[in-house]
């Protein structure tokens, strides 16, 4: 039996998946090189079997679940924004469509009178509320802050 034939089977024998036949065993016993190769292969196999499996950190599951919840929350935010943008776009399209329809039908003259009346009404309203403008600005800031806190709390709850 030749060494190159034997060396092809070394790993199988070392892994316990092949039992050496009588000629093979005789060669391994008598050939220093092949015997040493088998011993080295068995040593490598034993070392590989005795490797301790690295363990995940204690909070691994919690981290995975947190990442999952964050990914889900981000997905919901994208949907929310997309829905809001679609609503605004639809509103703009409807208003433009109405304006074009009124223009084509000649109602724009009537609508321009209505717009002028609306503008004068708003101007009158602005003059009346301008003394209280700081109060209304502060109320707007408070409302905006409340909305931001609510959004943040919703994000925290989702996570």
């Amino acid at each position, binding site marked *: 039996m030749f060494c190159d034939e034997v060396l092809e089977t070394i*790993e*199988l024998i*070392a*892994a316990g998946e092949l039992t050496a036949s009588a000629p093979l065993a005789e060669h391994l016993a008598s050939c220093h090189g092949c015997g040493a*190769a088998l011993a*080295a*292969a068995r*040593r*490598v*196999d034993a*070392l*590989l*079997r*005795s*490797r*301790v*499996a*690295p*363990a*995940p*950190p204690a909070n*691994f*599951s919690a*981290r*995975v*679940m947190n*990442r*999952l919840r964050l*990914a889900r929350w981000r997905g919901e935010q994208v949907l929310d924004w997309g829905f809001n943008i679609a609503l605004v776009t639809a509103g703009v399209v409807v208003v433009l469509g109405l304006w074009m329809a009124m223009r084509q039908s000649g109602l724009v003259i009537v609508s321009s009178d209505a717009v002028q009346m609306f503008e004068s009404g708003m101007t009158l309203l602005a003059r009346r509320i301008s003394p209280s403008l700081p109060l209304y600005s502060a109320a707007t800031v408070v409302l905006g802050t409340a909305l931001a806190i609510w959004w943040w709390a919703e994000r925290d709850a989702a996570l």
Partner: protein
Amino acid sequence: MEPVNERELVERCRRGDEGAFQELVDGYKDLVFALIARTIQDRSRAEDLAQDVFLRIHRGLPYFRGEARLSTWIYRIVANVCVQERGQQANAGATLSLDDTRAPVRTPAAADRQFSDLELRDRLEKAIAQLPAQQRLLVAAHYLQGVRYEDLAEALRMPLGTVKTHLFRAKQQLRRLLEP
């Protein structure tokens, strides 16, 4: 995990049961982390990648047809993640040698009491780091309890004989690298 329990767990996860998915994570986190940590050999990166595996599992559960075992499917995802990571490392110019001074990922075991044994294990880890990613994954997976040749062949979509050949070549290479 028994096949019947696996199917039930997958169905519960598909119905949005967060507790079921946590069970799945708890059931497979040791295997997934060990496979990745032994293949990537950078513990902090291995943690991130192991988390990515479970996020991919969660995204892919609605499409999991159940033709293969859940564990086989998970091995496949782990293999893909490891190969992608290896590709990114190659693009970034990362190189490894037996003289690499980075500490290998290992947990001290009761058997590591003599310096020669410790040194040999250290050399083994560095030799494993020299193997191609696929061989490294096969070595890591085969020597973890319960991962059979057949499971690996199914997970990696390779013939059984090819898996065995790759594994034996890997061990031959390790033997050569560990020769004094």
